[in-house]
């Protein structure tokens, strides 16, 4: 590993790791109830396989993957299914999703539905199926079903394990790498086999020397134990510059290859998984344990006892806050994720999902929020943008609602990292505008799509009517030709009318 590549833009942010940083990973007592959404990931929702009233063990499957890009859901506590109904998701706020609600019955009963696998013996197919069955998604926040990443359609040269937590405050991956480095390295070995990469780079920020040292030790221990030569695993320290942990930024930093616009890392021969995800892969393969919990950082100036907790999925945020000593009187904002890219939670009654890496409680600001001033086109936002976009132009068009200009200016390439908003001297909430514009564009897309569909439906219907008319005409001609039975004709005509009256559903469905 020689040179690293510098990605454009980015920010040096004051570190605020101390508050939750050094301690152990604290196990969280199972909450009385967990709310397991069927969609905690990118892609199709899972399909429930349990019924209300059914007893479930911890780790038991409650919903199976609904499609290739989907993820199974497992019971995160032992108990009984008490409800399958809609509950509000953390994001987007106000959107409810079907959840399997399990009430705990105090039991610690653990289902080991899956047998441990020996990654050296098992076939690649078996391993991939195991990752899929374990319901593993990207734990860095994006929540992309991992199994779908592990069947790249191009040769992979580098597997990247992303241990870069560029957001201030978040330390869950740091804690994991410090306390369970073997799990990360073992998981990396499994993944190396799965994607058949030549080498593995474990990327850690250079402000986490302890994590890097622990990982290096784990690699060395592995090499010492193994009778055969071990695969090429290198721990790489990358400069601490937000958003160094963004997938595209990290791939660029390590390999100097730019993931194409709108594309994925495998297109440049790289597969990239978060360190927590890697540890989850290890648990699924070596222990046969599905993804039922994750490490969550609870932190921020508004929380009494910040720390990293091993949290059963579906745990209400409120329960987690209580475990961290509760919030202080000054606490006002509840954020899921980090201060740069997190989203405000409307309520503490929502739940921890697979993609939840951090619960941040910020205090009421001592000063009034700064007034938003007009854009002075200073270009600071553009200089900070890691995607090389021109946020001031995006803002101009989003504000002016000239949405069709947003595409060529790369709105879709915006990773919502927030760098532009942080540096803007006019304090314009740029990211909020971009999110708004994205939803607006998506709406338009949907509307256009729907219009196209209905046009297709109409076309199909017209074609069908035309065909029927022709058939009728043909029949009439036939009748004329055979005048022997003139009486039966009206009945058949009526039947044709009947088919017409039916809603054109079938045709629409087919198109």
């Amino acid at each position: 590993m020689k040179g690293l590549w510098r990605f454009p833009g980015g920010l040096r942010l004051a570190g605020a790791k101390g508050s939750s940083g050094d301690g152990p990973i604290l196990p969280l007592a199972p909450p009385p109830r967990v709310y397991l959404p069927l969609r905690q990931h990118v892609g199709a929702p899972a399909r429930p396989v349990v019924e209300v009233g059914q007893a479930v063990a911890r780790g038991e499957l409650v919903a199976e993957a609904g499609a290739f890009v989907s993820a199974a859901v497992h019971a995160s506590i032992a108990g009984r299914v008490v409800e399958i109904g809609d509950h509000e998701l953390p994001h987007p706020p106000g959107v409810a999703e079907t959840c399997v609600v399990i009430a705990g019955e105090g039991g610690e009963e653990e289902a080991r539905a899956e047998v441990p696998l020996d990654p050296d013996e098992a076939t690649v197919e078996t391993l991939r199926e195991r990752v899929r069955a374990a319901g593993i998604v990207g734990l860095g926040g994006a929540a992309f079903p991992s199994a779908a990443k592990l069947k790249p359609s191009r040769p992979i040269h580098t597997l990247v394990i992303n241990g870069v937590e560029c957001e201030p405050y978040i330390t869950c991956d740091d804690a994991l790498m410090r306390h369970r480095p073997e799990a990360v390295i073992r998981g990396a070995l499994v993944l190396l086999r799965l994607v058949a990469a030549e080498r593995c780079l474990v990327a850690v920020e250079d402000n986490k020397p302890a994590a890097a040292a622990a990982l290096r030790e784990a690699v060395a221990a592995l090499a010492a134990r193994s009778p055969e030569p071990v695969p090429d695993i290198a721990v790489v320290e990358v400069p601490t510059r937000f958003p160094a942990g963004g997938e595209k930024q990290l791939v660029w930093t390590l390999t100097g290859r730019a993931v194409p616009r709108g594309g994925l890392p495998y297109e440049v021969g790289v597969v990239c998984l978060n360190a927590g995800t890697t540890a989850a892969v290890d648990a699924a393969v070596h222990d046969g344990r599905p993804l039922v919990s994750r490490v969550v950082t609870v932190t921020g100036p508004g929380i009494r006892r910040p720390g990293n907790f091993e949290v059963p999925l579906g745990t209400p945020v409120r329960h987690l806050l209580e475990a961290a000593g509760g919030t202080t009187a000054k606490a006002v904002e509840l954020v899921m994720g980090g201060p740069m890219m997190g989203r405000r939670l409307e309520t503490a009654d929502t739940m921890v999902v697979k993609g939840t890496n951090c619960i941040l409680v910020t205090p009421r600001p001592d000063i009034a929020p700064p007034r938003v001033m007009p854009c002075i086109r200073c270009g600071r936002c553009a200089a900070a943008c890691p995607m090389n976009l021109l946020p001031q132009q995006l803002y101009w068009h989003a504000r002016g609602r000239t949405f069709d200009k947003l595409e060529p200016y790369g709105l879709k390439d915006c990773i919502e990292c927030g760098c532009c908003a942080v540096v803007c001297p006019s304090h314009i909430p740029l990211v909020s505008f971009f999110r708004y514009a994205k939803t607006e564009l998506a709406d338009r897309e949907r509307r256009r799509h729907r219009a196209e569909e209905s046009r297709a439906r109409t076309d199909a219907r017209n074609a069908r009517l035309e065909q029927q008319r022709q058939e009728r005409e043909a029949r009439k001609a036939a009748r004329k030709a055979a005048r022997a039975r003139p009486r039966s004709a009206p009945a058949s005509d009526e039947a044709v009318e009947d088919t017409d009256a039916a809603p054109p559903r079938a045709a629409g469905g087919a198109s």
Partner: protein
Amino acid sequence: MKAHDPLRVDAAGAPYITPAPGVGRVMVLVVAALVPGIAAHVALFGWGLLVNITLAVAAALVFEALMLAIRGRPVVSFLADGSAVVTAVLLALCLPPMAPWWLPVTGAFIAIVGAKQLYGGLGYNPFNPAMAGYAVLLIAFPLELSTRTLPLALQQAPPDLAATIAYSLGGGGAAGLDAMTAATPLDRLRTGVGLGQAMAEIRAAPVFGALAGRGMEWVNLAFLAGGVVLVALRIISWHIPVSMLATLAAVAGIAHLAGPEHYADPLFHLLGGATMLGAFFIATDPVTAATTPAGKLVYGAGIGLLIYAIRAWGGYPDGVAFAVLLMGLTVPLLDTYLRPRIFGARRARVRDGS
């Protein structure tokens, strides 16, 4: 627990992080960076500049407040952004140090009301307000604008502060001013070359100093120092000053090499007139300059080129204001066609529409 339920505050969402210093602080830093140049100017040319600055700033604030009130904008917070002050100071820096009071006041009116507020205020003005104000004055009052004060060192009895104020408020025209004024070095150069005088002969005139125009050379160096600090603090980016100065130096260098008798050396251009002030403080006006890195390089180069062209062959002694205004016309084009390549894009898509 209930009592601590997160309340909603009127924050707009992520990022939840201390915001950057506001526009007001940026403007304060810009004015602070101007101080060495202003000090040098006052030391070398007398109190006139300070009187002009005071008048221009006061007038600009009054006009800005009035216009904000008329346009129904929050007066106080917009006044506090400091942009009117910066505009007024830059304008005053371009005026002759000994000037009647109505010159800075009229200039401020044109800059603030005409070039800024009527276009929608801060952020919406297509032209640099200070330069627009100056250019209009130059066209309307060519005589007053070209009456330049001699450096103090060349004056017999330099006026003190009271006399300067009296001169200004008296509306100018008081006797004795003639003794203090003369053609500027750039003027002198122009007429000299026009008369077919040799460069050495022209440069021997007392208005020329060791490096460039007497006095102005030090003022330029002071502005250069302030500008470098702004670049170091990342208040402005290096692109525009560097490309503007490099282009000016390069063109002047080529001309000088080709005809040393007719064309002044590059150092004279770099340290003469409003070069450094223009490079670091005027051309870099965020609102009216190009915004993309490549656009800024072209924009700066264009200004450098135009300054030289106007100085060498144009109808005005110094070209900074017109160069900046002219290049301002190209900004929408530069911003559209010189966009950075989006990360991961194979080729930048330059066209605006689809």
